[in-house]
């Protein structure tokens, strides 16, 4: 059957550019009262760096006040993009609206990508919470998602200065994205 498809990840290297692109992608929907989100892609390794942000908007991406959901067709589009660029889905980041807990809901836990060391991030205040220190970072540990607390967060999430590739995707396909919020 081959080797382990999910080699362990000790730390995630998160470029400031990925943080900025993530916020740019989701903040508009947040202003409209809807949840929104992005995919973080990179190479899976002991030190896994997020090297691409996929802004998800359009057909097959469902943004509503209480739920953000991505169709299997969109996963297929991003899968082909990732294959072409030798990338892997390392995590998702999505928003919760103002006043809602900044942490995974039951739906988030059940519908999330449940593979080892997968990251699930929640951004509060509809994407207006711009400081990632205020976001929740959870990791799937094989049984459930577990919040990365203070010491573990500091040890396993490193903010770095690096460029990231930017794409926008939906069920119709993928295109380059300039990081402009409403493009």
């Amino acid at each position, binding site marked *: *059957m081959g080797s382990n*498809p*999910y080699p362990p990840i000790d730390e995630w290297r998160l470029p400031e550019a990925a943080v900025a692109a993530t916020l740019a992608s989701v903040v508009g929907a947040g202003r409209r009262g809807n949840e929104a989100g992005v995919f973080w892609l990179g190479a899976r390794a002991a030190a896994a760096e997020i090297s691409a942000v996929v802004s998800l908007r359009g057909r097959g991406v469902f943004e509503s006040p209480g739920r953000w959901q991505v*169709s*299997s067709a969109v*996963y297929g589009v*991003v*899968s082909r993009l*990732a294959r072409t660029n030798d990338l892997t889905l390392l995590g998702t980041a999505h928003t919760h609206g103002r006043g809602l807990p900044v942490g995974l809901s039951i739906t988030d836990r059940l519908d999330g990508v449940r*593979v080892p060391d997968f990251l699930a991030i929640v951004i509060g205040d509809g994407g207006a919470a711009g400081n990632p220190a205020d976001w929740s970072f959870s990791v799937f540990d094989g049984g459930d998602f577990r919040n990365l607390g203070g010491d573990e967060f500091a040890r396993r999430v490193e903010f770095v200065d690096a460029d990231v590739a930017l794409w926008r995707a939906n069920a119709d396909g993928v295109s380059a994205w300039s990081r402009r919020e409403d493009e």
Partner: protein
Amino acid sequence: MNQVSTSQGKETKVETTVDYLPAQKPYHQAYAQETTLEVVRTEAMSHFGVADFTDRDRHEFHLEFEGGRVDYTQTLVQLLEHRKGVHLDLVEQVTAGGL
């Protein structure tokens, strides 16, 4: 990529590759030509450690070929009939209100 390979005196196999977005590497296996895509789906899911399940929603994993859902009753040789090579993607479909 799936390719029909022939070796003299040996059964023809189809080299089959399935990608799953969160996995580092794809699933590779050589299958007999008459293997159905349901068998490929089941064994790829096992390799990736995922399974269909129902909670509040229904979660199902499907194979896609060139952006379209495959017919699981079809065999690999039937899928290859009009093409020299294929590459499959395993994707999860979540249907709200499974229970």
